[in-house]
């Protein structure tokens, strides 16, 4: 059996992710366009969710790489992926603290 190449795995994940997120944001925009008269917090919530998923997408990509390198027993690169993840989480922590 041919092993799955990391490149095609990432390509598929990013493609699907971008489409899903774009659809969520488009839905939020549509709602806010058609319900402009009434206060419509749902539209803002959907938009915010879409933006949140967009930010999660690269994080998911790093997690996929981490799992892949760990499975390959490529420990240097597993460590590199872990450092990147921790740095991103540190940013989130700073953001929450600074709020």
């Amino acid at each position: 059996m041919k092993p799955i190449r990391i490149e095609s795995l990432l390509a598929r994940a990013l493609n699907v992710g971008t489409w899903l997120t774009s659809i969520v944001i488009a839905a939020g925009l549509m709602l806010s366009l058609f319900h402009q008269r009434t206060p419509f917090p749902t539209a803002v919530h959907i938009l915010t969710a879409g933006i949140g998923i967009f930010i999660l997408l690269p994080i998911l990509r790093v997690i996929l790489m981490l799992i892949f390198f760990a499975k390959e027993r490529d420990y240097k690169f597993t460590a590199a992926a872990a450092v990147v993840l921790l740095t991103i989480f540190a940013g989130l922590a700073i953001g929450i603290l600074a709020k």
Partner: protein
Amino acid sequence: MNTGTELWLFTVSVAAGALGGMLGMASGIFIVPILTLWGHVDIRSAIGASIVSVIACSCSSAAPFLKGRLTNVRLAILLETATTAGALSGVLLVGTIPVSYLFFIFGVILLISAQQMLAKRRDPALAPILSLTGRSTTWRLDSTYPDRTLGRDIAYRVQRLPIGMVLMYVAGLISALLGIGSGVLKVPAMDTALRLPIKVSSATSNFMISVTAAASAGAYFVRGDIVAPVAGPVALGSVVGAILGARLLMSISNERVRLLFVVVLVALAAQMLVAAFGKDWFRGIA
């Protein structure tokens, strides 16, 4: 936020994305100047919206490069340790830097981009792969990529990694401060420091941009600095524009696009610099 504003943001972002996409650049470099100078959005919200659009553009355009084996994913994750560290520093710094300084740095980055657009990129002379020793091989970063014009795989080495890492840290810092992808700093770092083939450095830089941006965007998002009714239309517009731009690229002469690009960059740079200095200068005169 009314409907007109959302439509305006969307339309402007489509245009910015298309212009960027025609030259394989993210729209981020246009978004902040347009939103602040013409849209009267304050610079922090503009940066927040822009950084999300940067993630969107990078994610949406990554697949073809990955499938074409142009992206060096191992090198990318290694360099991302430096770019995300830079982004984290940027997040910590951004509150302390006066807005006029941000405008100034942005103006300078726009001018560097314009200069880079004019200078033709050339492939660095590929080092002969004879003695496979040294840092690069212990990390197994060297790779090959398929060259369509030559019709065969080209092997390349990754050189001078430490300098590359330092430049990547700076790129990450600028990315977080200004809400741009800073491909404009990553690509020369890869061309001149790491000596990678152009196609590999473009693809790898584009791949890294989303993770670098996520490091700062995550912090801005949880801090509440990202205004959804601004960032939403901008992100979607940029993706649509980038796809259109990549299509247009096939039909328009590359030189003409390059010239248009340079003119736009210089015009925006001038406006950003005026915004940075203008008020104080006029106050000094008066």
